[in-house]
């Protein structure tokens, strides 16, 4: 008789084994307070030594917006007829930053917490979840700044703003999913964290943050597939839907260009479900190996 047989016969189970999916989800749900507390603790400790403290949560997005406005609005004159270019740009930057930062921190979420993984039991997916929640908390701060800017630029407060809630929720699901994927990749191939900034910057420029896709599509009239492809890009989808929710002038401007956006909602849903479910399963399948590094 082998030791393994002896152990199983006496009802012992393997200690480094991955729990069944259903049980794993239940464990993750049980840790939801940990995920939330971990996220807010991280965000508090981020600014604890700065003199202005938590004020940086608002100042950082504000300064970001100022830099982009200076470069793309003033120096490069990218507005090209887009009404209210500042709110257009700032909405794009803030909303895309949510995805961008989720990917960046998600990729490091396992590697940076190896000592935690090697000390305590918890579903490892808690970590990418926590980092995306942290980014969501930052986004909320950014949104307050954004609302102030948008209202200050004379945009009306309309019922359309409520559409922001489902868009952000779908984007949240998408971000969690993509962050789970890069978390697994980053856990076993650290090089990915060096490569990601370049990929993310490319993604940024392809997502219509500083220009309007509705505006430039005329330039690609002989390549309609390219416009279709750019439209399918999740980075663009969430940003564009947020703009349509917030900016009345931009909404009218795009309508005048005869550029429907109804299908973007389907894309948003598609990407959110695909990434969330796919990313979760992908991360889960390596659950027992994350401690090895």
């Amino acid at each position, binding site marked *: *008789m*082998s*030791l*393994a047989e*002896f*152990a*199983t016969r*006496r*009802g*012992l*189970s*393997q*200690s*480094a*084994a991955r729990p069944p999916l259903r049980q794993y989800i239940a464990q993750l749900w*049980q*840790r939801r*307070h*940990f995920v939330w*507390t*971990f996220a807010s*603790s*991280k965000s*508090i*400790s981020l600014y*604890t*030594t700065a003199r202005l403290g938590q004020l940086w949560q608002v100042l950082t997005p504000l300064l970001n917006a100022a830099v982009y406005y200076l470069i793309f609005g003033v120096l490069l004159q990218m507005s090209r007829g887009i009404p209210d270019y500042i709110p257009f740009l700032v909405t794009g930057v803030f909303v895309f930053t949510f995805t961008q930062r989720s990917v960046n921190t998600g990729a490091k979420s396992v590697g940076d*917490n190896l*000592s*935690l*993984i*090697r*000390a*305590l*039991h*918890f579903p490892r997916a808690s970590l990418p979840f926590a980092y995306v929640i942290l980014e969501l908390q930052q986004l909320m701060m950014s949104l307050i700044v954004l609302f102030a800017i948008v209202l200050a630029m004379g945009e009306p407060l309309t019922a359309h703003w409520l559409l922001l809630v489902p868009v952000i929720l779908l984007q949240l699901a998408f971000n969690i999913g993509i962050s789970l994927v890069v978390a697994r990749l980053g856990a076993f191939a*650290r090089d990915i964290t060096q490569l990601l900034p370049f990929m993310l910057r490319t993604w940024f420029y392809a997502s219509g943050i500083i220009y309007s896709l509705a505006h430039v599509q005329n330039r690609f009239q002989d390549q309609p597939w390219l416009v279709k492809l750019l439209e399918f890009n999740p980075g663009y989808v969430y940003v564009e839907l947020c703009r349509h929710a917030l900016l009345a002038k931009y909404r009218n401007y795009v309508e005048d260009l005869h550029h429907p956006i109804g299908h973007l909602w389907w894309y948003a849903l598609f990407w959110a479900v695909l990434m969330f479910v796919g990313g979760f399963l992908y991360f889960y399948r390596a659950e*027992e*190996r994350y*401690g*090895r*590094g």
Partner: protein
Amino acid sequence: MVDVKEKTESVPAEASPQIVIDPTREPIVVVDGLHVVYRIYGAGGDKGTAATALLRMVRRRNRPQMKTVHAIKGVSFVVYRGDAVGIIGSNGSGKSTLLRAIAGLLPPERGAVYTDGQPSLLGVNAALMRDLTGERNIVLGCLAQGLSLEETKAKYQEIVDFSGLKPEFIQLPMRTYSSGMGARLRFAIAAAKTHDVLLVDEALATGDARFKRKSKAKIEELRKDAGAVFLVAHNLEVIEETCNRVIWVEEGVMRMDGDPKTVIAAYTEATDK
């Protein structure tokens, strides 16, 4: 896979290379031919210039900056309910690694660890954040160990009292604590949870003499609740006092497994040379 045979009169436990199982007792941890390999990044033996990195890529040497450390090399043993097992060995012999592998925190390269219930490490350091107040760290540490929000609230005052920290310090960031205060709070948080199989790594019982006594009593209390206890320590007296069995690990291999007196005597003899 390690073959075992049942205990008979003629085979004394520690003399046999084979694992002998006692069918009358209830096993709680079975370690079967366990190998653990660590992967360490950034250990790079050669010069870390871009040119050498490129050369390595050209030569298709996989994962350039990675080194592997074979920390545990085929360890097998069976621990029964009620056992208190001391693990001894010199620095870097693989004691802590063995503990983490039993806890299921380090995946085995080969072999397996079977347990009844979830073994857990007494230690919460990694979950705490220096920049946060003691108060927030207590909540964070409890949640990280898997306590629910209600349990955390219920245990909060108990933890503060046990740590013996003055109320004004609880509101300060942990980075302002002295090392003794930090250790006391960490121990208090870690001890707030009950465990099926308790794994205690050394250096937990730090602090002043009074706190050492307190924490020793607390470990004793946790030990009574747990099904089995593993204790890693350099202090052989502590091991001899609290354990009914000692495993001696050296360079990732189990040198001896038996009653405390015999193993500690052999260990002292080997290290005094």
